[in-house]
């Protein structure tokens, strides 16, 4: 590929995005709460060669199952780069690669390098993707893979087919999102058929292959979970209260900020333009937007995942809108109209998307120094078989730092009666009566109860009301209080 001005700008954008990500990632030495699950898995793979499928700490002891490719990748890198830097750098490189994918995809859609550069700049700073993929997160890996597959499906040369097949296998071994890819591709075939454009032979064959691969692989991988949870497997067994919280914590207007107002408006116009001009390449993106939108509507996927996918798809579709605007502006007498527009749109994007997006990133939940200190204290001062009560958000971090059991965390698959556990945890924090708390404390064998500002805000309480009972002793008191539970049936 000839290295011209546009390629240099692309490299600059990539470096800019990567730099911004690394700066944000390294602004704290901690990781997001969710990341600690992956970190434990990666450490276990490094030690034993296998993922930690039987975990003695999570929920007091349980089985997991998940496709481990992402964790193996990071474990592999950690043999070359120090562990901490692997966890901070590699996921951000994966996430930043989206910039390159969006550039080439946009170029295919518009055949306009300038528009492609603007679009890839947008993609690098989608607020929700930036916030959710800074730390060790699966999304930093499978999102770029997902869109790369879509791009290659649209640009289906013989060489690309081999890459598509390999990437589909990679996606299947990374996440159950492969099923959503298949639905998007099937919808794409349907759209093209409805619009009177016959899909090519290769497209049909690739989609058929992907369908059977995804179905077969997910049936095998999730066999136990299918039997345990039936249709609830689609929601990953996320408790109904938590799913509802996802959707109620974010208003309709706020959800637009997570995607970016500029990209949203341009993306919607892009959808209209694609349907009007029957641009086949855009149908793949439109079908993804439709798929994720419907899944969000029926609350089958977490809100942040749906918004990330929709956000990136809209960024790509916005390139069609940008192209049309630029073409119209180039016919205007004012010769500098296109470049003025570019400057204007970039400023608008920075003002309305990047700056609000940074606040989203800054507010991403990571453990505070006080919390870490409290957990390390617990690690030194509690028996090895102790169980610690906290909210589900902190569950993985508690396992990681204290090496003790938790009552609940955010990995809900293969957990029976999850709604009851969520309800019990809430009762344990909210009830004023020890008599109501006691059976639950015994049921879950709870030895310590954590009270922190995060927990009080999450549980919407002010304090542990039965905390002054005889058998409940505060053993650690700073901004965080840890209570030791010494209650038995006679308490």
């Amino acid at each position, binding site marked *: 590929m000839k290295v011209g001005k546009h390629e240099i700008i692309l490299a600059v954008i990539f470096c800019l995005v990567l730099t911004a990500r690394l700066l944000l990632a390294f602004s704290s030495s901690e990781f997001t709460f969710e990341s600690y699950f992956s970190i434990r898995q990666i450490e276990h793979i490094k030690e034993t060669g296998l993922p930690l499928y039987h975990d003695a700490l999570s929920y007091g002891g349980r089985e997991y199952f998940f496709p481990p490719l992402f964790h193996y990748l990071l474990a592999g890198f950690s043999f070359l780069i120090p562990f901490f830097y692997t966890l901070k750098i590699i996921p951000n490189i994966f996430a930043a690669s989206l910039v390159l994918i969006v550039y080439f995809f946009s170029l295919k859609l518009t055949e306009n390098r300038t528009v492609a550069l603007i679009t890839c700049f947008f993609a690098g700073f989608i607020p929700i993707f930036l916030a959710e993929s800074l730390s060790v997160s699966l999304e930093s890996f499978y999102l770029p893979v997902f869109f790369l597959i879509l791009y290659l499906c649209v640009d289906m040369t*013989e060489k690309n*087919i081999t890459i598509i*097949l390999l990437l589909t296998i990679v996606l299947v071994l990374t996440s159950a999102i492969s099923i959503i890819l298949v639905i998007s591709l099937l919808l794409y075939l349907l759209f093209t058929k409805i619009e009177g454009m016959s899909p090519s*032979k*290769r497209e049909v*064959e*690739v989609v*058929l*292959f992907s*369908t*059977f*691969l995804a*179905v*077969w692989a997910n*049936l*095998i991988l999730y*066999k136990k979970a*299918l*039997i345990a949870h*039936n*249709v609830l497997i689609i929601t990953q067994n996320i408790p109904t209260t938590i799913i509802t919280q996802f959707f109620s914590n974010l208003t309709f207007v706020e959800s637009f900020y997570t995607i970016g107002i500029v990209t949203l408006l341009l993306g919607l116009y892009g959808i209209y333009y694609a349907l009007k001009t029957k641009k086949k390449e855009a149908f793949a993106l439109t079908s993804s937007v439709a798929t994720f939108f419907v899944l969000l509507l029926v609350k089958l996927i977490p809100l942040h995942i749906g918004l990330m996918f929709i956000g990136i798809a809209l960024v790509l579709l916005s390139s069609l809108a940008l192209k049309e605007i630029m073409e119209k502006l180039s016919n205007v007498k004012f010769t500098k109209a296109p470049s003025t527009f570019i400057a204007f749109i970039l400023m608008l994007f920075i003002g309305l998307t990047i700056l609000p997006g940074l606040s989203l990133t800054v507010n991403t939940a990571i453990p505070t120094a006080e919390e870490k200190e409290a957990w390390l204290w617990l690690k030194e001062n509690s028996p090895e078989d102790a169980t610690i009560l906290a909210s589900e958000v902190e569950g993985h971090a508690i396992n990681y730092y204290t090496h003790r059991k938790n009552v609940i965390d955010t990995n809900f698959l293969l957990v*029976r*009666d999850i709604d*009851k556990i969520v309800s019990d945890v809430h009762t344990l924090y909210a009830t004023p009566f020890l008599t109501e708390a006691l059976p639950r404390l015994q049921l879950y064998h709870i030895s310590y109860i954590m009270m922190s500002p995060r927990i009080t805000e999450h549980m919407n309480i002010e304090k542990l009301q039965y905390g002054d009972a005889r058998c409940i002793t505060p053993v650690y008191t700073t901004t965080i209080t840890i209570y030791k539970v010494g209650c038995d049936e006679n308490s």
Partner: protein
Amino acid sequence: MKIPEKTQVFLLIVLCTLVLLAPGTIRTLQKNPLPYGAETAYASRILQQNQYDPVQERPTTFNLLFYGVSRISFMEQAMLLKLLPFVLGMLSMLMLFLLLRKERNYLFIIFLFIASPVFIYVFSSLNALSAIIFLNLLGFFIFLQKRGWLSCFVFAIIPFIDVLAFFLTAILLMSYAVYQKYKIRDVYIIIVVSLLPLMYMITQNTISIHQYFDLTGIHELFVEFGVLAGISLPLLILAIIGIAIKWPQQRLLFAAYLLLILFFIGAMYSTMITIYLGFLLPFFGGFALRYFLERKWSIQVLRNITLLLIFCSLLFSVISFVDQTTQEKPNPEMVHALTILKDFSDKQELVFSSPQNGFFIEKYAERKAFLDGKSYEYPDYTIKKETYETLIASRNFETTSALLEKNNIQYFYIDTQMKQQLWNNREDGLLFLLMRSRNFVRIYASADIEIYQYVKLSEQQNI
């Protein structure tokens, strides 16, 4: 390369044998030689009875299959119960072969037919479905030989085994007639004539036509979700692809598409409809398989891998299903527990458990079950169902004891499955009372099973 017809039949027989013998063989190797399934337990018990169930103390509805089997005296019953479904399975496969051998896709359809979990479920244990499916195929075969009048005799047998099955057969017959543009009047005549003996029996009150319909979720349709009598997801996908391929001929196959949709919806209400759906899917799946094989793929490697994936998905469904059957009741632990119950209790005493355990309690403990898989055929079913649900949910001892005494329930058979499904593994409802109240004495406990006895204490003892 065309395989000679005799070789085709031989290979199909081998495949059929392997598939049908797998559940029983694996169970035997796992030291559980008992045939799986509640229906088999019921059939083996009721065969020798003459329209009266001495354990449940109620008349039984006339079932032509059981009547016919009970008249076979040249073979031991235990052997007969194992052999009969196998023979019916083989005959069904051969009947299908004869029916379809002039169709282009016949080998694929028969392969999918044999490789479907529904086929294994129906023909690896004795149940009414094995005879129904065989009779359907026989009736269609005779009908297609232009001997409609003779097919009446075959179709007329079906309602004496299951009335719903006959109506489903009638729908299939009419749909086929529309597809082949037969005179629909002739089909009506066949259906009506076939129904005449049943009508007569109904007027004589010797047969009941009660059916059990219960709305279940879509997850209750697929074997991948742990359901025994269900369809396979890969086969459904193949069938959908087959329909999509045949879509240009939509006028001809419109009836078939409509039928599939109706059967799919109906399958959420009745296991019988699920089974019929499971046997329809291979017809459409066969189109898809042939299409994949004969299509000129742009990339040969992709063709081979896709076909391999299809084969692996189907194989996975079968293996998964066979694995499930090996876990099915009864097992030695259950039989042991029920034998102890039989020794401990008196003949007149009633046992409370989930309806899924009813037939096993009657067979191995020889005691009356409060509810079983046939209770819906009797007029008191609604009241009993309400009582059952109240007892399961109630933590109030007074409410529970009143119902126990009213219904004369003395024993409770509780297994792990009930604890999971009815109480979510919590000490709730009846389970709470069984574990906490002094009025319930645990007389047996093992890893998965507990049996309690209800003991009336005096008022002072109750305080």
